[in-house]
């Protein structure tokens, strides 16, 4: 092997090859994973704000007993949209945003495995989000909760298009999720830099990988359930309708077979964010890398076997309940392993208390509280008392906000310099964190208490003699405080885009590959594809236990068009040059055709639905069309 310096014209050529075209065309046609990642992040944060406004509206209604701020029907729609928004349109997509942006940079690749699929999954996400929201201004939004139980949501009890929006909207969104997940799985298997064997991948990659495999297995359950519900409601089948021999509990089985794995899909990547970023602030590698990686996978595997703990109160046989109760409690073991790994990392490190560190430390505390209440709801005997009370609402917010939102915000501060080239302000950041943290606990801790005192969940008001008016007022105040913390955070973020201190490539002195490029990275990510020899390529000169050295300035220059290197799934030995597609309007066209199809199905315009479907097919055929036979198998030199 010989090496030659990469001449400047070659670098310019790479930039030109990978750059997105300027103007509206480029905006619609880009397949750059960095742009798509940022779009995912921005869109999901917009949905976070929408969901937040809905939540605050609910909290105003619940601030005092017997208020009439919202009508019951409005309350139903708002709490359903709040749940749907937070769970489907914020929590998972925001993590996809991080992964889309960061994966190729962390893995030493120039793009995801399927760049156009990546664009497609974003457009589908955006359009299905809009689809789910069209009913709200008309007073026709989904109103059966994010779990959408039958028979409450069957056409007898809930006529109108509300539930059809839910059913079709989630099938629509499910396509985006599956497409995106497949892309992550293949990216991980095929496009890591030479030498990045699976025991050298960042934990965020493990987390998203696990979640993506889980999505491939879980999402079809929801899509199918929604499809059956749509048939029941519109064509008179009886999957769930008792009158024709259908089974309402089938809905719950299918929904929770999806729903429980899904909650782990919402948290494993964000636990990965913490596992990768927290050690940077402790100035040492993560304690127990292998244990944490395995815990991630184990959590998911067990997570597929515990769905029935959402159904303890439905009168299932005792044997089934005991089994699922035990399985649910066992799942605490891998979570505990991860928690101990983080604590040990802080304990044995030299922590610097920057803003991201605050979020990660806060996260650990909230995770523990949420884990304890999860343990309680997982034991069937307790759950019979607790289910459908505010206790469950407390639990699920401790886990969802604690494990998803806090790492996400910490991760935003941490990677903001990579995204934008600038730092976020520390002082404003601290203020935002403490307001949020105190507000969060004021808002959600008392929910445990009102739950134990018997306040049911999913009700639009409660009687004064329940004696929980005071607590509820406190909860509402806490919720507003939390919201103002988030607003302050976003103000800081937007402000720092223009006035933040200039960051440089590696402002936190972090060890992973994404920090080896400029901030923000050039369109091609890396001039040369690096060769990796350890888990911490940028810390190798100070960690003595590494024998081999990664080569960040010597590697494969692939400059015959958009190219990156493909490696073997486990050991990452290079074995192919992957030629990547350029900008393309096909993803947007396919997403538009799909939207036409779904809007037409909702309005029962069958002819237009057929046209949308046909358009989608034509786009797909064009998408897959073989390129002209210009020596596609001709071997080529690395350089």
């Amino acid at each position, binding site marked *: 092997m010989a090496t030659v310096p990469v001449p400047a014209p070659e670098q310019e050529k790479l930039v030109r090859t990978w750059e997105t075209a300027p103007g509206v065309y480029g905006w619609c046609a880009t397949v750059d994973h960095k742009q798509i990642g940022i779009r995912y992040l921005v869109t999901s944060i917009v949905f976070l704000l929408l969901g937040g406004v809905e939540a605050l509206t609910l909290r105003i209604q619940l601030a005092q007993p017997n208020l009439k701020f919202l009508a019951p029907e409005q309350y139903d729609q708002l709490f359903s949209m709040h749940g749907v928004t937070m769970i489907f349109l914020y929590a998972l997509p925001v993590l996809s945003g991080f992964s889309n942006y960061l994966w190729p940079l962390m893995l030493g690749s120039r793009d995801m495995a399927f760049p156009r699929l990546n664009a497609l999954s974003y457009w589908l996400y955006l359009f299905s989000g809009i689809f789910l929201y069209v009913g709200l201004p008309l007073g026709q939004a989904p109103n059966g909760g994010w779990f959408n139980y039958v028979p409450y949501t069957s056409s007898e009890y809930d006529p109108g298009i509300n539930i059809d929006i839910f059913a079709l909207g989630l099938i629509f969104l499910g396509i985006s999720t599956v497409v995106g997940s497949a892309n992550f799985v293949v990216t991980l298997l095929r496009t890591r830099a030479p030498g990045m064997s699976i025991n050298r991948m960042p934990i965020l990659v493990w987390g998203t990988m696990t979640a993506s495999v889980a999505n491939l297995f879980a999402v079809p*359950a929801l899509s199918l359930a929604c499809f059956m519900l749509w048939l029941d409601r519109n064509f008179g089948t009886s999957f769930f309708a008792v009158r024709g021999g259908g089974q309402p509990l089938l809905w719950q089985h299918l929904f929770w077979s999806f729903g429980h794995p899904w909650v782990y899909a919402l948290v494993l990547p964000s636990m990965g964010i913490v596992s990768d970023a927290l050690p940077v602030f402790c100035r040492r590698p993560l304690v127990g890398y292998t244990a944490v990686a395995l815990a991630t996978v184990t959590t998911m595997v067990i997570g597929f076997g515990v769905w029935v703990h959402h159904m303890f109160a439905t009168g299932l046989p005792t044997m089934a309940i005991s089994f699922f109760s035990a399985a649910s409690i066992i799942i605490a073991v891998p979570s505990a392993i991860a928690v101990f790994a983080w604590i040990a990392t802080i304990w044995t490190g030299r922590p610097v208390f920057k803003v991201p560190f605050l979020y990660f430390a806060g996260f650990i505390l909230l995770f523990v509280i949420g884990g304890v209440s999860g343990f309680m709801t997982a034991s069937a005997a307790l759950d019979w008392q607790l289910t459908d009370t505010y206790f469950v609402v407390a639990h699920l917010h401790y886990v969802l906000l604690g494990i998803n939102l806090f790492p996400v915000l910490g991760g935003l501060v941490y990677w903001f310099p990579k995204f934008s080239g600038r730092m976020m302000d520390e002082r404003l950041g601290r203020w935002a964190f403490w307001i949020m943290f105190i507000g969060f606990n004021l808002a959600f801790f008392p929910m445990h208490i009102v739950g134990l005192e018997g306040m049911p969940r999913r009700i639009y008001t409660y009687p004064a003699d329940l004696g929980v008016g005071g607590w509820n007022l406190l909860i509402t105040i806490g919720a507003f405080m939390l919201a103002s913390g988030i607003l302050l955070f976003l103000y800081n973020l937007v402000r720092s885009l223009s006035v933040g201190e200039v960051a440089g490539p590696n402002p936190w002195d972090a060890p992973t590959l994404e920090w080896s490029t400029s901030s923000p990275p050039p369109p091609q990510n890396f001039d040369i594809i690096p060769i990796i020899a350890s888990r911490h390529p940028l810390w190798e000169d100070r960690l003595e236990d590494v024998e081999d050295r990664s080569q960040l300035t010597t590697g494969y220059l692939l400059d015959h068009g958009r190219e990156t290197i493909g490696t073997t799934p486990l050991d990452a030995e290079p074995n192919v040059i992957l030629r990547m597609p350029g900008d393309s309007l096909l993803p947007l066209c396919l997403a538009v055709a799909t939207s036409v199809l779904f809007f037409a199905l909702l309005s029962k315009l069958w002819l237009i639905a057929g046209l949308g479907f046909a358009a989608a097919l034509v786009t797909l055929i064009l998408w897959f069309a073989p390129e002209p036979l210009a020596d596609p198998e001709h071997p080529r030199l690395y350089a």
Partner: protein
Amino acid sequence: MPDAIIAKDTLPVNGPGRLSTGWWGMLCLISTEGILFAYLIFSYAYLGVQASGSWPPGGAPPLSLALPNTILLLASSVVLEVGARRFRSGRDRSTVPVLLLTALMGAVFVIVQWEEWGRKEFGFTDGAYSSIYFTLTGFHLAHVVAGILALLVLAFWGWQQRLTRGGLHLALGRMYWHFVDVVWLVVFLTIYIVPQQP
């Protein structure tokens, strides 16, 4: 200034089979679609276990059409596989007749299935069994139709001489068609064979 490696050995560009990303992508698609069928069969079993009357309501469905149809579909996989292996080079139309024949066998399967639907005494909305029966077989039928479309498009590209031996497109089409057949075998066992009394 970074250095580029000049290697003595070379790598293929967008190699065939497992070297391509498309092959792995198809594997992902097949897994999630396979799971979809697993959930459908779960629903079938769940409705059956919980049903108050007999399941299936009118006794086991007859095999007179379904059995030959199953054999036909499985045979189409064999035809496709044998034919595809004879495919010689990128400038060769030898694969076109095979693709068309496979598509034709698929089409006959669809017609026979349609006939079978017509012979049922119950309609789509008559009850839980009929709902799940038509949905499960209908999902499969939709997959067969998608497969036929894919085969026809492949045949068209083959006729234009745009396909290569060992190339990605043919490989993906084959994977998908075999998947559709294997799924049918499971559906057939569930719906037709399991309820038969010995």
